[in-house]
């Protein structure tokens, strides 16, 4: 793309919503992976495992398994990371209800600029860079949570070298985007699906009521061979019918956006997670301030007391035996940390983690 074309596109983008802040996708350059940089054996349970804000979801049980990782990019100008999916167990007997999608779920508060009116939406465009081990048909899809006209898909044939792919969703009526912190739009990359989702004709013309059979006809299966890989980066969603150059942003901004949906509370200076007060000889309540206001009061999954210590009034660390979330708001979480004994009710206390411990608070969609 020429520089003149870049400037022309950016000028058009400015008319549509601004030169900066136009990308509705968080972590589109795949730079933030607070949970893990690589997880193996995925395919049975939905969830967020590696790169922030990118979820994997499944339908009926599949034999297919894969590794999801933050890969290093060396052959695409402007990018250093990608999200990589690598099939490790095949599934060639695909039941009707099977599916495997990579999703990015968008919050209503962040989508209001897509509105043309309370019952209609402007055109918007997805762009992303991708490459695969071999030519691979995938589908991208948008599905609104509410409204009458809510779903549209597009087929893409991904090649073996990095290339940019786009999907423009035309302006539509009978659409609805609630102005709240709920999930209002799901962007999906369809990578494997059974006949429930592939037996119709792909709905690639306009937003329409969702028909399952029209969501992913024509796609291949990432689970067809253990040779199969797919890498994606530079994901951008913006108002208008033109894909403008990818909007790079500073890492602090991206991290803060990600932390609205989850953060690792062990990533605190000097291992000190929070401070509070002993409520008896065997427990203390510790307040953890969130680095930014979270989307909702967060869940604490997999609480791990190993490597956690609570200090008593003398400043001596006592090994924790259990950690529980007692209460939470979007801004602060109160942890109940148990020890065998040695605390004194009313005395100040700190919770510290060693290098082996982590705990992730999540308020994902």
């Amino acid at each position: 793309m020429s520089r003149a074309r870049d400037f022309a596109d950016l000028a058009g983008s400015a008319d549509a919503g601004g030169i900066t802040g136009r990308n509705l996708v968080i972590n589109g350059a795949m730079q933030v992976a607070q949970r893990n940089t690589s997880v193996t054996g995925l395919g049975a349970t939905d969830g967020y495992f590696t790169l922030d804000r990118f979820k994997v979801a499944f339908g009926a049980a599949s034999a297919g398994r894969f590794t999801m990782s933050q890969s290093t990019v060396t052959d695409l100008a402007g990018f250093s990371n990608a999200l990589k999916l690598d099939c490790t167990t095949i599934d060639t007997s695909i039941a009707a209800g099977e599916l495997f999608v990579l999703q990015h779920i968008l919050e209503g508060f962040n989508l209001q600029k897509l509105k043309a009116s309370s019952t209609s939406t402007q055109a918007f465009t997805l762009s992303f860079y991708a490459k695969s081990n071999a030519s691979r048909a995938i589908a991208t899809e948008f599905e609104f949570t509410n409204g009458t006209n809510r779903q549209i898909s597009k087929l893409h044939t991904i090649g073996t070298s990095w290339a940019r792919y786009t999907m423009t969703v035309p302006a539509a009526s009978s659409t609805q985007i609630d102005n709240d912190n709920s999930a209002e739009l799901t962007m999906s990359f369809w990578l494997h699906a059974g006949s429930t989702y592939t037996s119709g004709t792909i709905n690639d013309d306009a937003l329409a009521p969702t028909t399952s059979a029209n969501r992913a006809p024509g796609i291949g299966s990432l689970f067809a061979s253990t040779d199969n890989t797919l890498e994606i980066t530079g994901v951008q969603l913006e108002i208008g019918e033109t894909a403008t150059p990818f909007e790079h942003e500073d890492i602090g901004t991206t991290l803060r956006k990600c932390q609205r949906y989850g953060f690792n509370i062990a990533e605190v200076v000097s291992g000190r997670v929070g401070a509070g007060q002993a409520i008896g000889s065997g427990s203390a309540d510790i307040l953890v301030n969130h680095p930014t206001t979270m989307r909702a009061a967060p869940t604490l999954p997999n609480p791990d007391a190993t490597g956690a210590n609570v200090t008593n009034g003398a400043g001596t660390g006592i090994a924790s035996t259990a950690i529980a979330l007692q209460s939470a708001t979007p801004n602060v979480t109160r942890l109940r940390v148990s020890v065998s004994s040695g605390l004194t009710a009313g005395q100040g206390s700190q919770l510290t983690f060693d290098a082996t411990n982590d705990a992730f608070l999540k308020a994902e969609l």
Partner: protein
Amino acid sequence: MDITSAKYTSNDGAESLSIKLVADGITMYVPLDPANTEYAEILRQVDAGDLTIADAD
């Protein structure tokens, strides 16, 4: 979400403010915020008659 157990946490005699949940084989603590996706799913399953939340100890 395959929930195998749900129990309110003790809050020193006051009203519980979170639930200890085991779902998809993972133990987690869920605050009582309807915007929290896990709590929303708990409420959905309770409303459907598929789940009962046990009282706190």
